[in-house]
């Protein structure tokens, strides 16, 4: 899962990206409205944390532009402005959630998780696929009840695939959603990660669809079936 943080306060930005990084997200940061808008416009984020009072372009305008351009990633507004008029304006501009400063990091993480899974069509933080359990809240995965050890990149990969279970995901899409923009992106490393993941959760849980990408499936249910 890849998150964009648009926040002009450097300390808060650092804290947020640390907290989100610790929670297993790939994080990009923008410190002004223009950069924030550009990143959201060009990168496929799974969610955005957006401050409203930003230099250059204000948060509401950025959000309106994104929505007008058809960007549908969930946006959480994080602001000091706590009046209902501002909340209404935020939601009307296309926000999905609204959190006022000061806030507790756990609250923000819970809300982000909810946004991300809702966007992917899940109702709980825990996704169960035929014995493979991915707990996005705790950042852990289990096979038949026993925990498996995953690096943060591996978990990010698994989490993303679990969110989009049964769907074919291209390598580029995987790269875009599990690395932040500063990471040296080499799609070959994806193959390496997939290989490691298969060894840990079971080879037949990840199918390779030649020329298209990968698919996380329930091996018991419909091996190799064309489900969408």
């Amino acid at each position, binding site marked *: 899962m890849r998150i964009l943080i648009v926040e002009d*306060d450097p*300390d*808060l930005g650092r*804290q947020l990206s640390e*907290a989100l990084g610790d929670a297993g997200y790939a994080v990009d940061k923008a410190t002004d409205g223009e950069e924030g808008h550009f990143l959201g416009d060009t990168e496929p984020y799974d969610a955005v944390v957006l401050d409203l*009072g930003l230099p250059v372009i204000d948060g509401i305008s950025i959000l309106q532009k994104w929505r007008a351009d058809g960007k549908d990633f969930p946006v959480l507004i994080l602001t*000091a*402005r706590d*009046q*209902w*008029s501002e*909340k*209404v304006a935020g*939601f*009307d501009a296309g926000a*999905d*959630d*609204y959190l*006022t*400063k*000061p*806030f*507790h*990091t756990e609250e923000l993480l819970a809300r982000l998780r*909810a946004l991300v899974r*809702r966007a992917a069509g899940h109702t709980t933080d825990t996704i169960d696929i035929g014995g493979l359990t991915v707990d996005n809240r705790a950042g852990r995965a289990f096979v038949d009840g026993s925990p498996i050890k995953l690096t943060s990149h591996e978990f990010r990969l698994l989490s993303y695939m679990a969110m989009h279970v049964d769907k074919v995901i291209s390598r580029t899409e995987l790269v875009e959603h599990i690395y932040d923009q500063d990471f040296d992106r080499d799609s070959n490393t994806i193959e390496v990660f997939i290989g490691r993941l298969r060894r840990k959760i079971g080879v037949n849980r990840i199918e390779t669809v030649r020329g298209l990408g990968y698919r996380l499936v329930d091996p018991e249910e419909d091996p190799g079936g064309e489900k969408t």
Partner: protein
Amino acid sequence: MEGVPEHPEDGSTEQGRSLVWRLVRSAAMWVVPALLFTAFSLIWFYQASTYKNFNDPLVNTIQALVANIEDDPLSETADARIILANQPIDARYQLALSGRYWMVGELQDDGILVPIISSLSLSDSTLKLATKDADNIRAKQGEVIRAFSIGPDNEPLSLAAQSVIFNDQNLVIVAAADRRPARQAVRQFSLIALGLLTVLAMGLTLAIYMQVRLGLAPLFELRDRVVDIREGRAKAVKGRYPKEIKPLADELNSLIGHNRDVVEYARTHVANLAHALKTPLAVLMNEADGKKSKLANIVTKQTGIMNKQVDHHLRRARAAARGQSIGEKTPVADTVNSLVRTLGRIYRDKDLDFELDIEERLMFRGEKRDLEEMVGNLLDNACKWTNAKINVVVETDTGETAKIRITIDDDGSGMAVDQYENVLKRGTRLDETTPGTGFGLSIVNDLAKAYNGSLTLDKSPLGGLRAVLVIPMVRG
């Protein structure tokens, strides 16, 4: 906040302070005396001319009599007798008791006139003279004297008399006429004159009243426009005004604008300060969050206090600016609908079932953001505690003043009756405030009071809490 009167009543209906009344009264103060003076002058002149016309014939008669007195050639006595060569021709002298008399006689020492020759109209009577008139006649030999007397028919007479000496005989010639016709004519004229002038005075007063109303119309217009602003129907004094009061209208507009600026300035500056502090507070709280050191504990505790202080003063500043801005109005239906839409998104996991019954075109007399704060907090509270159903009714309040009533019901578990008061009071003092349940309701309560409205809590028929918010409405 509470100093705003519901109906600024205009002074013009109160007579003592009315400008119209003052102007009409001051005009009447010269119109009425002027007309009275005119009336009495006219009556005086008419009377003088009437009596002149009335008295002149008497003098003529006396002159004619003087000219026509001759010795009676047939008289044989020592007392020389006189006759008249010609008698005055007026027919009224021939008719008995006609009101026109003449006589030639002798004035005795005791003041009684003894007639020698008299008009037929006098019959056998004589003309009486008051003693002082008799003395007067004696004293002024040869002069025509005027006097009043009573006639043979008891009529009031005006008479002219002259004393002449004819052949050593001391004669008094008198002509008299009934005074009543002249008096009648003067009285009639007086009545007509006074009547006409009264009508004229009333007409003039009415004309002055109309003129004053017309002249002051722009002022009344200005007053009505100011009322419009106070009641939220307009944002500035509009219309064209004569150059005498245009500066007043312009000044009013700039004052309203200035007021709006000051309110906005105060509000935004406190808000900016508060919001500028919130981000650093968030950083400090996050930094200390979950750490076990002494420093972290202090930071967590103090930032918590700071945050409450900031919230408290931000609310105070907002409340102070409230009700100060004039001429604001907000459509209620739009605001409620957009809040319901927003809350539906905030609580989207709860699968809320809103039932709305909103009267269209109701206008709240106040600012949009305040209406949003009140309704937003009430709806938020309902969303928080409800199981699923929330009913919202917006209607005209049935009270005597124009108000809007917003009723919000939820089907949650509600709260104990003895908690209502507590929940509404919370937040009035900082040390009692703790964020959490009911905090929003006290904000609503403060706001409603600032707008001369009210918030009451009750048990909902749905099972949960019922909140009834009553706020002022823009009429017309």
